[in-house]
């Protein structure tokens, strides 16, 4: 348990620092890379919670696909160097307020729901296979709906991109 707590401390610090750096840096590619660091440390936290499948999905989808495309666009459209002075919008106090309210609401909801829970002495081991069984039985309709939605978004993106 002690080792787990130390690891959590380290990873959480990395996450928080990267998150702050992401919104303060002036270089747009650096910002994207800090976001990658945040997502990767979240993946590390999932591993710490023995949710390997969620961690791998995080890596595959967010880091491997979403952020790569993101960087792709940034690299091709921005001048080499990626330094941008106008990256900090003038309305940042509003954004800060929204972020603070969101963080507060989430923290409150989590504490209210799980604040008094304690880990059981004999935790249930939930394996990757169980995740698969759950997705394809209990949550089958939600899973299929999400797939169809993604497919529609994909086709829509192609249609929008081709009509030029």
């Amino acid at each position, binding site marked *: 348990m002690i080792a787990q707590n130390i690891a959590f401390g380290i990873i959480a610090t990395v996450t928080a620092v990267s998150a702050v750096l992401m919104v303060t840096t002036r*270089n747009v*590619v650096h910002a994207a890379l800090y976001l990658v660091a945040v997502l990767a440390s979240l993946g590390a936290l999932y591993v710490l919670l023995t949710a*390997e499948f969620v961690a791998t999905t995080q890596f595959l989808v967010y880091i*491997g696909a979403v952020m*790569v495309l993101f960087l792709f666009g940034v690299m091709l459209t921005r001048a080499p*160097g990626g330094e941008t002075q106008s990256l900090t919008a003038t309305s940042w106090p509003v954004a800060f307020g929204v972020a603070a309210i969101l963080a507060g609401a989430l923290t409150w909801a989590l504490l209210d729901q799980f604040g008094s829970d304690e880990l059981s002495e004999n935790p249930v081991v939930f394996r990757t296979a169980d995740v698969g069984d759950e997705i394809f039985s209990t949550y089958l309709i939600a899973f299929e709906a999400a797939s169809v939605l993604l497919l529609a978004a994909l086709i829509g993106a192609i249609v929008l991109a081709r009509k030029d």
Partner: protein
Amino acid sequence: MFGDPIYRDGVDWGDVALMGFKVLLAFVFLLVATMFMVWFERKVVGDMQNRIGPNVAGPWGLLQTFADGVKFFFKEDLKPANSDPLIFRLAPYLSAVTAFVAFAIVPVGGVFREGEIDTGTVTLFGKETYLQVADPPIGILLLLAVSSIAVYGVMLAGWASGSKYPLLGSVRASAQAISYEAALGLSVVAVVLLAGTLSTHGIVAEQAGGLRSWFWLATGVVPFGVFLIAATAELNRPPFDLVEAEQELVGGFHTEYSSIRFALFFLAEFMNVITMSAIMVTLFFGGPAGPIFFGLDWLWPTVWFFAKVLVFLFVFVWFRATLPRLRYDQLMHLGWKVLIPMMLGWLLVFAAIRQHRLDNVDTAVAIVVGLVLAIGATALLMAAFSAGDRAYERENTIKDEVGG
């Protein structure tokens, strides 16, 4: 049972030391193997092109790579003025580290026997364990996750160099890697469906019991072919080495790199070839399985494993020596319009066959229905392709008329 038996009764310092030993062994093995892989490639390509190849440093030029490595260390480390200093330094390490990590899930030895519950273990220093660095429950997904991170090394290297040829090279590389990752993942799905487990150890255990237990028909032809092609593209090896097409891009994403940073990219490339060969042996050719003749039981599987890996290493070199490079549109065409639809269709047919066995439907009915569906899907796909081609031509003729 699941997982490495070493963790079943808690973890003590001996277990930690053993894991450290395994990691060190894998690390040293990969480094040395890469060294000889570079020599092997140069020598075989030399033979195929009627040249001698490296023959000065050491017997048969064996120490050539070592000499090159030493030379790289003493070269001046250039950094272009336009580059992004931190990312320029970071990129080669991203490439090299990811190349090491993927090898962790490959079982390199252990006697696998059919039907045994706890098969494929060896005893190291009095502890029963698997002969692989890690056997995570997500198994083969780790390979896909790691290879998606490996894209960053190439992409950031090209961008951070601050010049156009590396940027173009890295854009090609990342587009290529993303496109072929889909085909790679789909062909892995077929193996996972058949083995019923993601764990690489489990996949090898499913194939234990001689040649007839290998998945010849189900994954041996279509998924293996797709995997081999997609892996070659993923590795940026010829004929898919558009990333460093000298005639078009100077040297590709590592044009601006010199000294040991360049060597790291080189190391990562050859190390990835070894890892991919090992993964192919694991997924499609029974991993360390093979007949055990005499004497040391634990030695033979490892020997078989390396023999099989060597075959694939030769295949990769053979590709390089014989196949001309693809054009970029051909590459994208092959990836998106041939490999992915083929693999999706195969998965559909394959899943239907698996399901009819579970449901006890008549085999003939299942085959007829499967065939009809497959033909229908292919016809739809062809119609979509020709519609796309017609739209493309129409667009181009309009452009020509306006432009002309």
